[in-house]
């Protein structure tokens, strides 16, 4: 089957469109040269980073882009250090599940690297984290996060689902900057892949709510995460009450759409994890 092969990577076709799409990224030959370097290296992140950097004069990122990417970077710092710590902790992750978490770990570190590269000197420094959600006490509600595998997986799920909602909530702000928007979206959907895997792992792949790959209403079985799922029960999109257009149940209706979180809501969720 034709589609069974990997679908490839960011190709020259979309690259060209990114470069010509809007005034913000309209540049001359130098742009193509920079992007070509990334493409020659056959690296999507490099190409994206080149695109993003090249879309603006270095050091002249629009304030809104800096603000959005630094929010993203803060979350990626959180996730990367969380997985770096968890993966390094002996006896925490069973051998059978190790590849799942080393995969996610590698991705989060790549996201940090990309965002720092795109932001340059405007990148915020990495905060000091308390993964127990204890605001630095080291004795928060998830005190056994690195000794109890169940807690570790639960916190991982909360981080991933928060990440999906956080990126989504910033899409509108990035709309005037198509290269950055597209780059952010290619991270956003990877966070969703992570979230689905961790959710299913927590349910031992039994595919039963609330441990399916998708979010059912605002359901959560993790203490202290009501804010992470608040609003996911929404069943109205673009003013269309979804219950009126199919006879599919409300659980599946709400699973079909992931909801965004505002910057403020995201920062409130992560605040207990930041010293």
């Amino acid at each position: 089957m034709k589609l069974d092969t990997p679908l490839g990577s960011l190709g020259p076709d979309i690259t060209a469109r990114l470069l010509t799409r809007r005034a913000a990224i309209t540049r001359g030959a130098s742009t193509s040269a920079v992007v070509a370097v990334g493409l020659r290296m056959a690296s999507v992140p490099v190409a994206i980073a080149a695109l993003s950097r090249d879309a603006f004069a270095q050091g002249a990122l629009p304030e809104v882009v800096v603000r959005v990417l630094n929010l993203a970077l803060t979350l990626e710092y959180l996730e990367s250090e969380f997985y770096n710590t968890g993966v390094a902790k002996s006896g925490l992750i069973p051998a059978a599940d190790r590849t799942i978490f080393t995969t996610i770990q590698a991705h989060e570190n790549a996201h940090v690297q990309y965002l720092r590269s795109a932001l340059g000197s405007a990148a915020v420094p990495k905060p000091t984290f308390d993964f127990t959600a204890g605001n630095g006490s080291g004795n928060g509600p998830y005190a056994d996060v690195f000794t109890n595998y169940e807690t570790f997986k639960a916190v991982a799920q909360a981080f991933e689902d928060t990440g999906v909602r956080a990126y989504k909530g910033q899409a509108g702000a990035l709309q005037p900057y198509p290269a950055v928007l597209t780059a952010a979206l290619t991270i956003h959907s990877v966070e969703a892949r992570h979230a689905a895997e961790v959710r299913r792992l927590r349910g031992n792949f039994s595919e039963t709510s609330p441990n399916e790959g998708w979010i059912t209403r605002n359901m959560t079985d993790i203490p202290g995460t009501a804010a992470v799922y608040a609003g996911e029960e929404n069943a109205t999109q673009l003013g269309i009450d979804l219950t009126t257009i199919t006879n599919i149940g409300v659980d599946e209706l709400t699973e079909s759409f992931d909801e965004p979180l505002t910057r403020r809501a995201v920062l409130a969720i992560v605040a207990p994890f930041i010293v």
Partner: protein
Amino acid sequence: MELDHLGTRDAAREETITADRRRFLRAAGLGGLALALPGVLAACGKEIAAPAAVKLAANTDIGDAATVTLNFATDAGVLNYAYALEQLEAAFYVQVIASPFGGMTATETRFLTDIRDHEVVHREFFAAALGSAKIPNLTPDFSGIDFTSRSSVLRTARAFEDLGVAAYNGAAMYLKSTAYLLVAGKIVSVEARHASAIRDLLEPRTSHFAPDAFDDAFSPTKVLAAADPFIVDTIIAINT
């Protein structure tokens, strides 16, 4: 008025869809959805001025395929692109559940039924949002899929879900409405959740659920070329 969802800026008047008359009418009969005929559109309100958004070609030759043109200069064109892909996905999973492969477990049935429901919701959502501006019902061509084979079904599902993710990621920049961008974002992450889960079914507990730190973002042309073998109709993207 259905078209209110599209606002006035991106009225569908730029959409031109030519279709074989017989194919078109048959689709209307089979699909059970109201067919947007020129007369209906003309009666539909101020956003749709002549020429009509949908016109039937005079061609009545043999052949079933319609040709659908998606104008990416309009948000209606972009939403119809999503609608086309959701039609394809929904039709696929409807058939997967209607004729399950041998040995489909209860867990797999529950799982694939959920995905079917999500894709049907997406399809019906776009149909409702587009109203009279929506493209006709497409006719899938699943002749290359062996629905009795778990491997064939799951590998096709993987291809469709990954393609859907790359399609939304690549099309977002065309949208002018922030509301539409947001709703596309709400859907793409669900497609990514599907992709992750399907991939994990194929290769459990490996890195397969997320093969790269960055997902693809494909141009409409590339996506439509990949989807083409699975759709009888011809879909053309313009102003990309």
